[in-house]
């Protein structure tokens, strides 16, 4: 598909509009609070979009996808504090390192089907967390603290926060475009076939082991980069935060809520979930019930609307499928 043809597709511009919205909204009026809200939403979108490549396309649930985010965070923070690298290179190289790690692990655990794969992704997260907790160069259980000096090259702490925000929005945009381009590519078709019926896909010639490993590896990159940016911003990383399963659980709920297997789904889901969450946190009764609400929401979606919001919209207006992926 040529660049010209892609530029003519309305969906390309819809994604561009979302990116623009994220970038512009808090900038007008220098709204720091909005920026922080949107930053969290952007992180959720990054996590959900990338895990959607495995979940919605290939039909493989990655419960422990947070491991990519956390490891990426560790690599980036380490490169910056111990080796004195700049943010961009630290984050990118961290992303590449995590992708390589994912490829290695993926080749092993992707031979497992269904539930066993899902469970082993939790195991991968737990194993990495146990390892990092005992790994002295990365601060072990106490973690790594970053000195504020590292914010100077970015124009000081206040300015740096804006830079990091725009970079994260960029990563979010890349995640959405990645989702989209994969979906309309031959690779994406193969993944979707695997998701429908893996054995039949193999018989039709889809190189299932290679495609699954590639999807897993690709789904690790952008979350790892985002993790680098996120933890640099907080100037602190420790194992229990970096490998918090709750985060990837929420990403799954978001992907399902918005519509697994669609590009827009994770974005819509993140938006709705964020609103729900902030409303819950302000209400005294429900503050402790975050996971309960997430679980109940997921149950309702799985039982009654497995296609999520996008699925529901497609059911109403089938023509929408041609415009909104």
């Amino acid at each position, binding site marked *: 598909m040529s660049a010209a043809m892609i530029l003519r597709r309305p969906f390309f511009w819809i994604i561009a509009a979302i990116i623009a919205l994220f970038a512009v909204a808090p900038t007008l009026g220098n709204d720091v609070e909005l920026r922080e809200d949107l930053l969290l939403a952007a992180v959720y979108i990054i996590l959900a979009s990338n895990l959607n490549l495995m979940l919605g396309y290939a039909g493989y649930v990655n419960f422990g996808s947070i491991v990519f985010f956390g490891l990426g965070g560790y690599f980036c923070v380490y490169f910056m504090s111990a080796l004195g690298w700049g943010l961009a290179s630290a984050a990118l190289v961290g992303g590449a390192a995590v992708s390589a790690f994912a490829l290695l692990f993926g080749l092993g655990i992707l031979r497992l089907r269904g539930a066993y794969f899902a469970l082993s992704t939790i195991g991968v997260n737990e194993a990495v967390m146990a390892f990092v907790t005992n790994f002295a160069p990365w601060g072990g259980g106490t973690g790594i603290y970053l000195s504020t000096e590292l914010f100077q090259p970015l124009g000081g702490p206040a300015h740096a926060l804006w830079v990091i925000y725009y970079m994260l929005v960029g990563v979010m945009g890349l995640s959405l475009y990645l989702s989209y381009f994969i979906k309309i590519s031959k690779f994406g*078709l*193969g993944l979707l076939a695997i998701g429908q019926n893996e054995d039949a896909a*193999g*018989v*039709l*010639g889809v*190189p299932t082991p290679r495609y699954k490993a590639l999807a897993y590896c690709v789904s690790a990159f952008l979350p790892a980069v985002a993790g680098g940016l996120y933890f640099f911003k907080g100037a602190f990383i420790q194992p229990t935060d970096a490998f918090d399963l709750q985060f990837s659980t929420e990403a799954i709920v978001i992907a399902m809520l918005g519509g697994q297997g669609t590009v827009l789904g994770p974005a819509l889901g993140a938006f709705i979930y964020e609103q729900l969450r902030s409303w819950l946190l302000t209400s005294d009764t429900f503050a402790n019930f975050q996971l309960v609400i997430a679980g109940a929401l997921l149950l309702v979606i799985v039982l009654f609307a497995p296609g999520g919001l996008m699925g529901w919209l497609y059911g109403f207006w089938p023509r929408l499928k041609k415009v909104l992926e």
Partner: protein
Amino acid sequence: MTALLVIERLNMRFGGLAAVQDLSFTVEEHEILGLIGPNGAGKSTLFNLINGVFAPNSGRVVFRGADITGMPPYLVARAGLARTHQIVQPLGAMSVRENCIVSACFGRENLPLARASKAAEEAAIFVGLADRLDSLASQLTIAGKKRLELARALAAQPTLLLLDEVLAGLNSTEVERMIDVIRRIRERGITILMIEHLMQAIMTLSDRIVVLNIGQKLAEGSPTAVANDPAVIEAYLGDPALAAEFRGVA
């Protein structure tokens, strides 16, 4: 004519059960070879052994001179061997067109997406699914799904086509149509190995027949020869009256 597919002393055991025992035969280029036998004779297992779903305990499968024994199914498909399934396996949430595009993209032709669409359409029209191109595969009738299996296999432009009971569950009109399609497939130069229970169909379509019983080759030859083979009659048909009728057909 050169042997397109060579089955050489294949053996497959599942626990205590020998599903395929020391089986050998060849499929010649451009022929239609029929595979018949009572239920449990090992026919579907044989197909699974050929296209790589199972790896045999011993023996070889040679396709176009290359040893494909135990190769994973996607590599076998890439080599030019396509198959349909006895229990249909549609990619349910995709349309007929998309199902065929998958095959066209990943089968022997390995086409890029843009060209695959055309090949997919042609295959679907060829089997008679022209008016269902954009229907969801899960919404087709059983006959439609069987035709989709065939269309998908064809979309890859295979050299050898394995048909696993494509006629089962179809009414007489549908059977007629399918027989016609199969003939036209052969006219295109595609070699066919087909499992079938419908005697009339397989006897008229096949150039040669191989009879399996309890995983072993019972007989091999022209339809007439096989129909008159006492061993076949005894194993397969049992009843002499039925056997006479059988001979009358061939």
